[in-house]
């Protein structure tokens, strides 16, 4: 192992997005001797891309997106440094500002937004049409809402729905073009319909059953979206949220195998053993992820494999959790759902269309393997903590629908009907029965009951209740019974 003075092995990471950033951060922590250069083509320091729609909504400002700067190790993040070419012979990455030699190279180039191939969009995006991929996109959209009163969001995946909600939150009239239903890739149709109800309840018009035929452009600026069923949606602002495609160009030019994404093996290695790929750009044996959580898991696994020599234990991509971050809507889905459940799985669902709510659970063997919650954020957060925890499944999975908070059977708080065993004064462990006995022994005021039993002498929280018991005893038992009485009276049965 090299000392701190000698330069350690050089790792170059192309891409300073969330996954590239996480990888560099983990490397700095696990292997402080490594020289790590992270090349980012945006002029911003690494930021939280997942929050871009929150930036549109105005629920966060730009500074709030910036991710922690790697604080340990020899990690340098080079913003505004675009990788132009990978020279695998010389093991160097070419940029306008010079070459970066590497011993190991990691591609974290991410994905680019897909632009649908329709008239109006073929010669570059006209003014007023945006994708949502980078900070500048989100800032442009936010600026556009100042002038545009009508917007169309094309694509009803999580990004489209979040964007539509964000625009609606800013007071813009929004139509969401959802040719295959709202969140169709994440939700089964019946559930998607409930999500659609939610969106409509926010005042978002959802256009289903039709795709985009063309985008109307006047003087280089968008003015409408034409659907293929003939509908025309006037729009001063159009946001394309039509999915993304892995950014593979640099890898392909360098002669690395690419398919949908950059092809990697279980160890995230490309066809060149010194080059790896992680995140949205990588096509693992399990597929392309497109979500941040599996990307972060890959980054962690690769960092441990580079730093510690551990075998990368890759997370599954299918069934990765989707949690919508949309003002006014709550949709969470993770793991298996009705349409992907096995025949032997148990599927428990609760649908409450009127309340725009749907909850669905899938259990397999002794574990909860799938959760879908629409309009039920409390349950969703609880169930998120229960997924894939063998040994915790209730005897009846239906009980999971109760969540963490099952209201306890309400104990009677009435001095008349509460049982004698009920504790009145917690601080001193005094029950209603103790008070009744003290009353029978002649303590017939709050003060004398306090002296006899110490009730009310701790935090005083039971004073009202003790007063109530005194009132009750006075009405039911105006004359204190003889102190010699040995009859035990049922405290919850008023005496005549």
């Amino acid at each position, binding site marked *: 192992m090299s000392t701190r003075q000698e330069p350690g092995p050089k790792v170059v990471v192309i891409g300073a997005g969330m996954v590239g950033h996480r990888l560099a951060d983990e490397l700095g922590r696990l292997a402080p001797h490594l020289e790590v250069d992270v090349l980012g083509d945006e002029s911003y320091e690494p930021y939280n891309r997942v929050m871009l729609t929150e930036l549109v909504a105005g629920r966060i400002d730009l500074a709030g997106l910036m*991710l*922690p*700067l790697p604080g340990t190790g020899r990690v340098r993040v080079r913003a505004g440094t675009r990788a132009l070419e990978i020279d695998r012979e010389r093991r160097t990455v070419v940029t306008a500002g010079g070459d970066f030699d590497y011993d190991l190279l990691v591609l974290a180039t991410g994905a680019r937004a897909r632009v649908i191939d329709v008239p109006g969009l073929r010669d570059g995006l006209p003014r007023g049409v945006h994708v949502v991929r980078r900070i500048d996109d989100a800032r442009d959209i936010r600026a556009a809402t100042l002038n545009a009163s009508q917007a169309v969001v094309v694509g009803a995946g999580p990004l489209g729905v979040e964007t539509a909600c964000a625009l609606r939150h800013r007071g813009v009239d929004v139509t969401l073009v959802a040719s295959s239903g709202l969140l169709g890739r994440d939700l089964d149709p019946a559930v998607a319909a409930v999500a659609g109800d939610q969106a409509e309840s926010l005042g978002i018009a959802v256009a289903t059953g039709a795709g985009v035929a063309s985008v109307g452009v006047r003087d280089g600026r968008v003015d409408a979206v034409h659907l293929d069923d003939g509908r025309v949606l006037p729009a001063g602002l159009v946001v394309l949220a039509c999915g993304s495609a892995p950014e593979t160009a640099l890898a392909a030019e360098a002669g690395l195998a690419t398919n949908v994404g950059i092809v990697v093996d279980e160890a995230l290695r490309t066809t060149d053993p010194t080059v790896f790929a992680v995140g949205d750009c990588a096509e693992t044996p399990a597929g392309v992820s497109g979500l941040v959580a599996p990307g972060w898991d890959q980054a962690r696994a690769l960092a441990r494999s580079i730093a510690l020599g551990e075998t990368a234990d890759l997370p599954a991509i299918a069934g990765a959790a989707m949690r919508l971050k949309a003002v006014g809507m709550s949709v969470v889905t993770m793991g298996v759902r009705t349409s992907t459940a096995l025949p032997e799985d148990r599927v428990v669902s609760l649908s409450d269309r009127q309340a725009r709510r749907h909850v669905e659970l899938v259990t397999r063997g002794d574990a909860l393997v799938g959760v879908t919650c629409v309009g039920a954020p*409390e349950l*969703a*957060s609880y169930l998120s903590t229960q997924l894939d925890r*063998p040994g915790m499944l209730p005897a009846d999975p239906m009980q999971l629908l109760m969540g963490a908070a099952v209201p306890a059977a309400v104990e009677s708080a009435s001095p008349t009907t509460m049982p004698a065993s009920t504790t009145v004064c917690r*601080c001193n462990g005094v029950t209603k029965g103790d008070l009744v006995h003290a009353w029978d022994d002649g303590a017939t005021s709050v003060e004398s009951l306090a002296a006899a039993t110490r009730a009310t002498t701790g935090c005083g929280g039971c004073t009202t209740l003790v007063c109530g018991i005194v009132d009750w005893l006075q009405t039911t038992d105006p004359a204190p019974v003889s102190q010699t009485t040995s009859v035990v009276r049922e405290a919850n049965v008023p005496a005549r």
Partner: protein
Amino acid sequence: MTATHCPYCALQCAQAITPGDDADGRVVVEPRAFPTNVGGMCQKGWTSADVLTVPDRITSPLRRIPSTGSGSGGASGGGARFEPVSWDVALDDIAARVRAIGEQDGPDAVAVFGGGGLTNEKAYQLGKFARLALRTANIDYNGRFCMSSAAAAANRSLGIDRGMPFPLTDLADADVVMLLGSNLADTMPPAVQHLGPVRQRGGLVVVDPRRSATARLTDEGRGEHLQLSPGTDLVLMLGLLHVVLAEGLADADYLATRVDGLGDVRRSVAEWWPERVAATTGVPETQLRRIARTLADASPHRGGRGAYLLTGRGAEQHADGTDTVTAVINLALALGLVGAERGGYGAITGQGNGQGGREHGQKADQLPGYRMITDPVAREHVAAVWGVDPETIPGPGVPAVELLTSLGQPGGPRALFVHGSNVLVSAPDAQVVRRRLTSLDLLVVCDFVPSETAMLADYVLPVTQWAEEEGTMTSLEGRVLRRRRAIDPPAGIRSELEILAGLAARLDAPGTWSTDPREVYDELRRASAGGRADYAGISYERLDAGEALYWPCPDEQHPGTPRLFAESFPTPTGRAWMVAVRAVGPDEPLRAEAPVWLVTGRVLQHYQSGAQTRRVPRLNDSMPRAYVEIHPVLASRIGLDGIDDVRITSKRGSMVAQARISADIRPDTVFVPFHFADEGMVNAVTNAATDPVSGMPEFKVCAVQVALAASTPGGA
């Protein structure tokens, strides 16, 4: 009638003690009006006099009778037999053995374990005894299990550690009080009175995996309960700060003028957006946002009446406890609360003198006045007060868990003095602690009852109780209080000051060893002068005259400091320091063989290890055993029907207690109070992983298996 304060928790309820003049001679204890307890007292306080006369009170030094076949220390305290010996015999032998061990293996082979219940005078003298008489670096105390995370975080961010840097009565003015992992309705019931006004305003927020007695105080619109997944407090705080910063709710002026480090902290919370926080903590993002806004609206810069964020052991007793408290402080700083006229951050100190006990030299790395033992200036000052060469003061020792696990090991201490602590019950991973204690060559325990730890000792030295002694205690709000002698101790008992003086003389220790609490205290004042916890101006005379004195109080004309931070922070820059922290999560993850979280805590009837309260009939009758709080859903899964005994098992050990089925706990979590010994000792199960900064063990969460006791074999 003698005016003093309760022997138990840090609330230090004011008591009036009247020696019995009736035939039974029973001592009468009643509450006194005082700002903290407002005339209230809980069941523990009301019955505190019972401990004075427990049947097994020790009234003579006891020496273990070596059992045939096994060496000193014995394998178990169960069959231990002791014989009474005179004080001279006991102290002579102890001193001789200490001297022999020291000559053989060096002074660090003798260690000291103190307690947060000792008076300031005793805590001070114990630290001095370790450094000057034993010449050992190895001293630490059970406060490491209480306040160390909060202390480390407050020192790091605010430059000082005073549990509550404001009087408790200030809470009444606030719009919001947020309690993180504090169950004060059970641990210090009279304190609940201070929450009354904020509850009237609907502003009590309780963060706890259980719907505890304190969480129930939020019912009926009095506030909100956040029933998070165990061990996720830090993530919850990151999420709240995320919302505060994202929605522009922070106090920008305050941050600009009084705080450094915001940039890194802002970045650190960028990764914790509400939906992600919800999935980790189980607290819905809707509630998270609502609480963040409620806190902001309560903050002075937005016109609120103030907000207080208070942590208890639930948030602190984690392997990331220091960082958790740091995240709470970061939130308080972002809202401009710390040092505001109304609002702030505070840690709710647990033990009676948990505050003073951590200021005067019981901690491995500290000298009196909250001075660092590594600071040459501090060493010089204290050495001058002690009348020794600074070089003779040893360097820093190791924190409690490390100290305990090194006992009897090669290179570790061979002798241990225990004062004011029942460490066998109160330390994590108790099986290991038992093995370590029994492997010592010499264990000396000062106690007034035969606690579980005392039963393992070679010598048990009987000491005075609160009503039998003079001294001072520093309460949870940093106010110094007088403990006063109301009755004479039984014949044959000595105060710890007398014991330490006796041993110091036999060990030819330099310096003076007064047995008069007032003289020791006056020396403490000089030793603390100029330190962070400066007691120089707080005299017995001023306290006895009724002055309310909060440290720091540098001279006798100084009025004391009820509220810290109004102008600046005692840091090198005068500004508070926000420290970016990372969420790591529980040290021990769940797994198929241990799929349930165990959380531990306290019940109203018992105090700490229960050595005192389990001996009080009225308390013990209402809570004679440990119990396992378990949700009906988990109960039905394991086939639990009613009140059967259940066994809790972790990698480290197991315990058995009766089940209490309750919907107040999460279905994935069980709760067990830790005050009990033998098969009900939950610390046989807890995780001894410690916080890298504070040394705090992870008492509050570990992974366990839960099963019917009847269906499982005994033992681990």
